[in-house]
């Protein structure tokens, strides 16, 4: 308990983070195309795998069964698109609002708190990521890649992935000097989306398999894949806990950073 008290910043007051989301809903009414277009990226990847790469790879073993490559990749794509959506919403867009549009300065001049700002932004990224996840799940179902109703549990799993990466992304953004640093985001996101048991199984790593655990996305992929196959195990609780803890710690740290940066 004392540790928790020490982590939570003294000024951690949550009043109405939903007002931040309200702002984005209004702002994006004019730019709905941008929101909609975000859905297409994972879709294109899935279709590309289905059209060509799947033929090259053939079948892959998932939970002891041989499945077409696209069925192996699809749940991972769902998780990594939740990550991508969350990261890009909480980095580039946040940097713009933080440093250039100075929207948070405006918000903090009102009774809104730094925690409201951080939670509102992360909440918005989650909401957006969740829309994509729902769409993607629909496409998977349309392509016959969903095995049972359990697959609906992939949605809360993506919510966790989004929460973790939106919080980390927001925190990282508070340290950025300018848009040139956005290059770093790509440099981190790319290996995560390739090496988290997404496009090839962990078995390919041999003795280094434990290293994959470092990637938060790996835990998300494990959850989404389990939801899709309906094969449950106790380790899923651990995967979920990892994501939750990462999310909360990053959220608290991000709030502290907003406080430091904008209320100096």
């Amino acid at each position, binding site marked *: 308990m004392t540790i928790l008290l020490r982590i939570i910043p003294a000024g951690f007051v949550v009043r109405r983070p939903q007002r931040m989301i309200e702002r984005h809903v209004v702002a994006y009414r004019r730019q709905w195309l*941008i929101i909609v277009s975000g859905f297409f990226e994972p879709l*294109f990847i899935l279709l590309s795998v289905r059209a060509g790469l799947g033929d090259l790879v*053939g079948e892959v073993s998932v939970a002891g069964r041989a499945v077409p490559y696209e069925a192996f990749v699809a749940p991972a794509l769902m998780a990594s698109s939740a990550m991508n959506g969350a990261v890009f919403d909480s980095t580039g867009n946040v940097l713009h609002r933080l440093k250039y549009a100075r929207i948070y300065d405006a918000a903090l001049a009102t009774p809104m708190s730094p925690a409201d700002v951080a939670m509102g932004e992360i909440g918005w990224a989650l909401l957006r990521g969740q829309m994509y996840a729902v769409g993607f799940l629909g496409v998977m179902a349309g392509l016959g890649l969903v095995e049972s109703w359990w697959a609906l549990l992939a949605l809360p799993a993506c919510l966790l992935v989004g929460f973790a990466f939106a919080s980390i992304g927001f925190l990282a953004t508070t340290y950025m000097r300018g848009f040139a640093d956005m290059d770093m985001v790509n440099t981190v996101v*790319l290996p995560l989306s390739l090496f988290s048991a997404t496009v*090839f199984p962990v078995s390919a790593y041999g003795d280094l398999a434990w290293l994959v655990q470092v990637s938060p996305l790996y835990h998300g992929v494990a959850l989404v894949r389990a939801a899709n196959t309906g094969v449950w195990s106790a380790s899923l609780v651990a995967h979920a806990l990892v994501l939750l803890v990462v999310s909360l710690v990053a959220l608290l740290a991000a709030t502290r950073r907003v406080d430091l940066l904008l209320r100096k």
Partner: protein
Amino acid sequence: MSHLATPGPLRVVSWHAALYRRLWRVNVLSSLVQPLVYMLGLGVGVGTLVDRNTASGDLLGGGSYVAFVAPGLLVTTTMVLASGESMWPVMAGLRWSRGYHGMAATPLSATDIVLGHAVWTTVRSLIATGAVACVLALFTDTRSWGLIPAVVAAAFVGLAFAMPLMAYSIDAEMDGGFPAIQRFVITPLFLFGGAFYPVTLLPAAVEWVAKAAPLWHGVVVARAFTTPGGAPIDWLAVAGHLGYTLLFSVAGTLVAVRRLRRRLYP
């Protein structure tokens, strides 16, 4: 003006280079890290899956998947870089930091600015693909002298995307169209354009679209040079493919010059 004066486009390039000097460190680092990550993830990781599948051998013409993907990586890198450099920075030059207006107040012409952009994009392409080539040289399957002409072929593709996009960006009202271009043109080409598997696997209609874009032509040329033990180079085909990409570059340049002249010197 003295006949010894630096040509206009090169003066524009030195302006680009001065701005780039503040960014190049991060930039070169990610130019090295990204291909390395792709090679390990797609080449080696997915490659193990592909090479294990006996059916894939025929589709790839007998080589390993790493060797097949490598030239694709080289050329898509240029496409992504050159198209990005021809959208936001061009809009910045006209609307945000207004560097082009600054140039327009000097003896530089619209042609100088557009050609300067072309030269600069080529330089950037060569740096980025050069970095990719260095990474490819680390792997035995992809190490060859053919990487050098492949880098040149990639630069052709870079221009073929840069110049039409520059023409588009000059008259674009807002930057809202840029992400759409990335999502609906660049990314699909990256995925379906022949970099990761032969376009012959695609449905016929998609295959024709992929072949119409300059990317595929560059990939084919680069692949001809880098495939280990490949067939002897058909120079006529190489010229044909590269000539096709030049159509895009030249058309883009002409439109860009006309539009920029209208914007800067109305």
